[in-house]
């Protein structure tokens, strides 16, 4: 070891190991050099400690303390955002699941062959006119496609909907017999109207002795005296 060895400075500053300390202790020149370094380091330390040290400005200290108060508060901004994000994720998952299962259920209902060509064009309706004579007329039948339901869950029996044949229609109900004005070609009975039940539609009654005989004046000036 010589005077240019960094271990000499480390020894003077109390950072060297015991092996370096033994080497220096055995050499008087190194010991004197280490003492010089130690003395100079003490003077330098005193000068550097005496150098002025300025604090933060008052508003800077306040900003730091305010940041500490916010950080130690009940919830940080990112914690609140995390909670909101978790709730939004739950809602999105629930919506996604609902859409998925709805689509899966609808995919089980498939049209077999569009509109059924063999379906009847019309159905026959039987009814009675005002004279009690039975009448029979064809009525256009709906052309909805035949749909076969294939549920994904176990079902007691597969549901199959088909258009009914005209001969299998139930007979006309008696309630249909009291529709005289709807019969084409028949003479409707005269309608008797009770005047008491007819609304006036803003017009005055025809009775001149009525207390309401004088015409109403709305928005006009009273007669001059």
């Amino acid at each position, binding site marked *: 070891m010589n005077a240019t060895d*960094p271990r000499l400075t480390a020894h003077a500053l109390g*950072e060297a190991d015991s092996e370096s300390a033994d080497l220096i202790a055995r050499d008087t020149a190194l010991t004197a050099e280490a003492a*010089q370094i130690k003395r100079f380091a003490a003077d330098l330390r005193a000068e*550097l*400690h005496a*150098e002025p040290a300025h604090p933060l400005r008052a508003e800077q200290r306040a900003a*730091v303390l305010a940041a*500490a108060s916010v950080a*130690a508060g009940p919830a940080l901004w990112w914690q609140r955002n995390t909670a909101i994000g978790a709730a939004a994720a739950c809602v999105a998952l629930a919506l996604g699941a609902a859409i998925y299962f709805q689509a899966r259920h609808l995919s089980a209902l498939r049209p077999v062959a569009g509109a059924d060509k063999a379906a009847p064009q019309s159905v026959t309706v039987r009814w009675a006119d005002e004279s009690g004579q039975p009448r029979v007329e064809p009525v256009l039948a709906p052309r909805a496609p035949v749909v076969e339901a294939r549920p994904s869950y176990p079902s007691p029996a597969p549901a199959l909907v088909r258009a009914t044949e005209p001969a299998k229609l139930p007979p006309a109900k008696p309630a249909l017999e009291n529709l005289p004005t709807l019969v084409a070609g028949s003479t409707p009975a005269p309608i008797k109207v009770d005047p008491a039940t007819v609304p006036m539609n803003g017009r005055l009654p025809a009775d001149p002795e009525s207390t309401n005989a004088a015409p109403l004046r709305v928005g006009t000036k009273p007669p001059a005296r």
Partner: protein
Amino acid sequence: MAAPDASDIAQLLERYERPLVRYAMSITGELESARDAVQDTFIRYVRDAAAPRGAGSEKHIEAWLFTVARHRAIDHQRKNSRIIPMPLPEDRPAESPGPDAQAEGHDTESALLRLLDGLTQNQRDVIRLKFQNDLSYREISTITGLSETNVGFLLHTGLKKLRDLVRAEPDFADYTARHSA
């Protein structure tokens, strides 16, 4: 780990704000930039969940604060070095610094501290950390990112150069004679 409350930060400010501003000022060369760097350092300490906290972590906290303050001060120094000062008109006299500015400036530094300008930035850095803030080789290594061997070498060469400057300086003739006797 829980964020420190205002009383914890007040204690840290009381203990470290002045050493940190002084150290940052040795890097930036300007007081306000040093203060800004130290303010940033404390705010980051408050918000950084990975920062050391609690009793028994004083040395870690100190090293953390000096490390961040050093980086912040270097950032400020680089940013300010890119600013080109506008030349003053010749008919307008330069404003002389007031008494406060003079007190805060370098006018009060001693002749020995002025000699530190003759060292490299790395040498000045480790000398200030060692002798002004009483940090160990290991702590200086953590703060500066240098190896402990490199820290020891920089301290050794820096002290040797500083002693040579003192011997060559006429102002230190008495000092040299007293210590060589």
